[in-house]
């Protein structure tokens, strides 16, 4: 399929990326927490995937390769954005979301997003790839271009923060699970 695309067969690209369309958009949305940004990141990811398809190592998992592009696109988009305040990392972004959109997302989505708000960008990347996308520690490290040790450290702190948030905001959910 990849060979077909490289030979200029435009129709072959869609079946190549369709299995990952949900994953790409969902991860982009969880990272950016904004629908428009998520669309932009996803589009950019797929365009880049096509542009760099020639350099794709066929021994590698295609999904992981796509996720690596996505994370890089997200990081670049983050650099372009100007942080409003120094405390930006720990400020809940839900305040920026307009009420209509919040209503549309529903309670469950808000819960998830609210829990991710307190994570640093690296913790968020590690947590989403390892716990949401279920990539191994090694795969996560490769996607993020870091070491397994670094992934473990960030994963541990991310889980700690999330558990505290869930416990603080939704104690009834934890009680129900015990």
């Amino acid at each position, binding site marked *: 399929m990849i060979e077909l695309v490289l030979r*200029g067969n435009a129709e072959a690209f869609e079946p190549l990326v369709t299995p990952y369309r*949900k994953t790409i958009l969902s991860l982009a949305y969880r990272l950016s927490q904004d629908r428009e940004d998520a669309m932009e990141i996803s589009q950019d990811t797929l365009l880049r995937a096509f*542009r760099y398809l020639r350099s794709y190592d066929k021994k590698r998992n295609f999904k992981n390769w796509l996720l690596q592009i996505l994370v890089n696109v997200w990081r670049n988009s983050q650099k372009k954005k100007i942080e409003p305040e120094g405390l930006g990392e720990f400020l809940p972004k839900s305040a920026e979301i307009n009420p209509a959109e919040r209503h549309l997302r529903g309670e469950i989505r808000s819960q998830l997003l609210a829990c991710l708000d307190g994570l640093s960008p690296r913790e968020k990347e590690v947590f989403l790839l390892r716990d949401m996308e279920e990539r191994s520690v090694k795969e996560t490290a490769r996607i993020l271009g870091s070491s397994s040790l670094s992934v473990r450290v960030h994963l541990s702190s991310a889980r700690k923060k999330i558990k505290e948030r869930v416990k603080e905001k939704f104690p009834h959910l934890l009680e129900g699970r015990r």
Partner: protein
Amino acid sequence: MNCEKAKKNIPLFAGGELPERKARNLRKHLEECEACRKELTEYKAALAILKDTAHEEERDWEESEWQNLMKKVTTEIIRRRPLPFLLSPRMAWGYGLLLLLIMGLAALFFRSILRKPSAPLLAKEIALTQVKPSRTFKPEETTMSGQVKDSPFPVRTRRLESSPGEVIIASSRSPAKPAQDQLSVTLVSQETGLRVYWTFNKNFEWKEEKQ
């Protein structure tokens, strides 16, 4: 293992990333410590909630958005479609050289057609012209010796039968005579009576006299 150390390891243990040696120690501690067991349960529950929520809230594209994106990518694919090898830019050098070669050959071909025939070489013309000799030697004269008429030098002459009708006079030094270092040739025009003397020295330098 104490509780402080256990609490550091529980987040990774909850997801199964803790190395086996540490995990074994933690399991031992968990058997004895209810607070840490509770902590672990909370971690596992929080992760499970988030995973479930993640699956529920998984986003998908609006079909029209997806199709638009695919259209956009497809357009780029077509724009970047590699040219066939024979049309690729790397062949430009080859085609340029081939064109120059063809032009060169064409120039040579047309030049040879359009060029006026050059005048034949004089020597060639002379060689091809059948001239009736003014005097022919008789067979008995085939070899003769003596002094060439009007020549101031003693020369042995003999006729060479290289071709019929052509007279070539070869000269050689007579063994009895002293060494000759000059040669004179006299040309006489039968029509005008003009005489031209060519005198060559041993270095083949020559001078011409006309009478």
